């Protein structure tokens, strides 16, 4: 049996299905696949194999440890630990999630100041800038809506999403969960905007998804948010805490503004 791949991009097809491909590589693969029948066939075949296993997974494919064996084994473990007091009796639990939340609260104080008058802010029209950042934001958002591209890390827990970016990008994006404001956090991913890797946070409003792009950018934090509409998508941009933030979604403009106000108000 041959072990060679029929096209050298096939490993990427599989990596994409396994969630091991970042958004930029996924976009390059999508372009390649349009011209490569081998990769299209591999996509279908791998997806089929994954579905077979996923469908069977819930019904007995996973072998849980039988209860009687677990009881015997646990007794043995306890016996071995009793003989050697240097062994830990409790599974150790990391404390870094708690320390993250402490650090994060400190960093968020700056936002609170600007948010005090957020409700009264007028939304200006986005000034065109650079090599069409708004176009890239919308393209990134649309690409992300294709199946399997939305989140690299899927979690509603900001203390899971925020540390996920550690080591993947060179800044720590502010991550907030707005579930209380009916904009629950869905996860995050890496994206590529304006020639640099950026953080994209994913929020949900009913059936609609909101992408919030974040990257470091010096700017006027006191300036009111700017909004725009293009190709049926609404965009709101503002600067806070040394970060440029771009919210994009197909929700109606009023709801996106509500999202931005809630986000700026949230600690």
């Amino acid at each position, binding site marked *: *049996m041959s072990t060679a791949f029929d096209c050298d991009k096939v490993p990427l097809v*599989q990596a994409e299905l396994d969630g091991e491909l970042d958004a930029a590589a996924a976009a390059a693969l999508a372009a390649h696949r349009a011209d490569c029948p081998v990769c299209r066939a591999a996509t279908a075949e791998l997806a089929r194999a994954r579905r077979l*296993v996923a469908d069977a997974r819930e*019904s007995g494919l996973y072998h849980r440890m039988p209860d009687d064996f*677990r009881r015997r*084994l646990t007794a043995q473990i306890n016996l071995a630990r009793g003989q050697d007091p*240097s062994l830990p009796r409790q599974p150790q639990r990391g404390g870094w999630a708690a320390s993250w939340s402490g650090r994060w609260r400190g960093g968020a104080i700056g936002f609170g100041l600007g948010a005090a008058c957020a409700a009264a802010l007028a939304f200006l029209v986005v000034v065109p800038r650079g090599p069409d950042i708004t176009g890239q934001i919308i393209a990134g958002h649309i690409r992300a809506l294709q199946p399997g591209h939305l989140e690299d890390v899927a979690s509603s827990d900001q203390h899971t999403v925020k540390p996920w970016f550690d080591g993947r990008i060179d800044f720590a994006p502010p991550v907030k969960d707005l579930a209380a404001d009916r904009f629950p956090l869905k996860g995050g991913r890496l994206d590529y905007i304006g020639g640099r890797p950026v953080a994209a946070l994913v929020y949900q409003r009913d059936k609609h998804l909101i992408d919030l792009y974040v990257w470091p950018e010096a700017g006027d934090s006191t300036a009111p948010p700017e909004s725009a509409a293009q190709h049926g998508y609404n965009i709101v941009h503002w600067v806070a805490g040394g970060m440029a933030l771009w919210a994009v979604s197909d929700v109606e403009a009023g709801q996106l503004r509500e999202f931005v106000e809630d986000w700026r108000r949230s600690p």
Partner: protein
Amino acid sequence: MLPHLNAAYNLARWLMRDSTAAEDVVQEAVLRALTYFAGFRGVNPRAWLLQIVRNAAYSSRQLDRGAQFVPIGEAGEDGAMPADQLASEADDPEAALIRRRGERQVRELIAALPVELREPLVLRELEELSYKEIADITGTPIGTVMSRLYRARRLLAQEAAASEAR
């Protein structure tokens, strides 16, 4: 270690394909793990325990000797195999058809994979580990993990398609 006993058993059970042999392997691995735990400095206790389970399984004389399956990926060319051998010929056609479909068929197909393909598939699909974690546990390069995973999935998809066509 206690939170990862299911993972340890699942891997051992799939590698050994026999519940008694799997229990022996897990017991051996857990006792080894207890001995080494004081020296454990990693951040991923599940992957660490699975690596010990894996090594215990591979040093067992009973590795892969469990329930005999027609190995797929070894018979015929390019992975083509007589999958009908998996189903007993005594079955009536309708029952055999139902049996071939669904989870039982998938379980048998996975069990029939050669152990070096079965291992990464179980770690990826059932334990949902990353390529890097699977490479660490199995002591193989990531590229090898990816190509084995690919072969395993191709065989699964092809066998399932072949049995549906029958």
